């Protein structure tokens, strides 16, 4: 039988850890994203042409939200599981009556929750600087939750894989951030000339950014079903990888 109290204990502990580090987990990303809104939304955005009928300041809101979601979901979950490994307190988790499901729901749920709170704050903050609307609010929330969960799972894998803080930062900083910047956060890939437009289609983040942008403005550079489908597929792959990690004990049990 599933250990619901164990799941709740992990979840509560992780959320409480984030609350203790509120500057790093909430204040810092909100401030950074707000600066993007100020610079690219208010200051420069006023001088830019509308993109696909959406004014530039509003156009970048989903992309910036996705940028924060990806980096925060990944780093929250990776830190969440890496810290017990680093401090040695992982022994307690491994010796407790909690299986892969409870562990994942606890850690990934907490990381995703933090990302959702962050997303809500960022969207609220964005209203101060830019005028935007959300065409499909329920789908937007669902999509944000899907992305937060998927990248929290990725973060969880990274937290198990990493053998030091440097490796922990490697994928978010060297892979996710560049791909997000090049994934249509600040522009529509339709604005790119060939062959760069075709090259951009190989960037998976393009599908994520456009998926979220569709929920905001009803238009997208790519097929929305491909966006949603690939995100779900990514989530399933991550769960599969984690199941294998727990089954083999890789980097967890000796």
């Amino acid at each position, binding site marked *: 039988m599933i250990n619901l109290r164990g799941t709740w204990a992990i979840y509560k502990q992780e959320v409480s850890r984030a609350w203790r580090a509120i500057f790093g987990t909430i204040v810092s990303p909100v401030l950074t994203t707000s600066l993007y809104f100020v610079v690219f939304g208010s200051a420069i955005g006023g001088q830019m042409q509308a993109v696909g009928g959406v004014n530039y300041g509003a156009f970048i809101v989903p992309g910036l939200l996705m940028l924060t979601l990806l980096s925060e979901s990944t780093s929250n979950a990776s830190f969440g599981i890496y810290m017990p490994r680093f401090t040695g307190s992982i022994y307690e988790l491994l010796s407790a*009556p909690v299986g892969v499901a409870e562990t994942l729901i606890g850690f990934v749920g907490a990381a995703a929750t933090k990302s959702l709170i962050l997303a809500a704050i960022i969207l609220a903050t964005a209203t101060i600087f830019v005028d935007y609307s959300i065409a499909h609010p329920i789908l937007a929330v669902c999509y944000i939750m899907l992305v937060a969960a998927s990248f929290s799972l990725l973060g969880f894998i990274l937290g198990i894989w990493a053998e030091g803080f440097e490796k922990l930062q490697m994928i978010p900083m060297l892979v996710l951030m560049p791909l997000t910047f090049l994934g249509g956060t600040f522009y529509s890939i339709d604005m790119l000339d060939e062959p760069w437009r075709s090259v951009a289609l190989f960037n998976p983040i393009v599908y994520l950014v456009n998926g979220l942008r569709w929920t905001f403005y009803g238009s997208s550079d790519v097929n929305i079903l491909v966006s949603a489908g690939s995100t779900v597929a990514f989530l399933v792959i991550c769960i599969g990888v984690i199941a294998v990690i727990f089954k083999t004990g890789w980097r967890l049990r000796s």
Partner: protein
Amino acid sequence: MEPILDIRGLTKTYSGGLKALDAVDLEVRRGEIFALLGPNGAGKTTLIGAVCGMVRPTSGSIRAFGLDLKSDWREIRQRIGLVPQELGFDIFDTVDRQIRYSRGLFGRASDDGRITEILRSLQLLDKRHDQIRKLSGGMKRRVLIAKALSHDPDLLFLDEPTAGVDVELRRDMWRLIDQLRDQGVTIILTTHYIEEAEEMADRVGIIDKGRILLVDDKDAIMARLGRTEARFVLERPQQSIPEALQSYHVSLHDEGKVLVYRGGDGMGKGKAEIAAIARILIEHGIIFSALDQKESSLEDIFVELMEEQAAG
């Protein structure tokens, strides 16, 4: 009575080829304090890890509370507590929150009264809202114990519980272990301090190079392998051992100036024989000016076993 822990043929070979456990068979009885002794790298922590879920055994079986660890791991883990050797926790968290976390993790409902009781028994009550990083090393170790006790385990593993702690804390720990035994908790402790095993344990197991060399009641080990040693310093050197002492385990040393007795059973026989030897010496007019007597400790027995093992 069925053992609370029953290990059969447990082997662990690490990927580098190191065999940390080699076909270990071990039974631990309900309600006892079992001390597992062994030098560094003997396999003590690996054995605990295999039972508690940190180590994946290569082969063998582990049963606890009559259940199989492979299939009934949830039920078993719910009833096991572990105090690890290394201090490992979120040092920025508070004592209270960490203990609540541990209790929840093991599936127990929150219980303020029980948590207060545990904190009080470990003299942590006034520290409950302190961050762990602000506590002394000894207090941090108490927190680890509180975490392990938070879900009221029936079987408690203490991996080197008093390593690096001061004498006062060590005595406190011994008292606590005694209390837990009185409450019916079965305790398995690994230790370097043989004195600790001698003081606390009902039964002792000696492990080296992944193999269990000996498991027995502490008193039985002392009786079987314990020795008493006495050194009689003689006023006049003797050329030979008097006929009347031939039946005792005595020998002459230092050019006949010291008569050494080694014998007994660690349970009083040695003392009686020393008294008899003293009487015989006096009867034979052999005057001794000093007498040193020493009972062999569990440590002597342990060292002797290790030396025998090393000699092959």
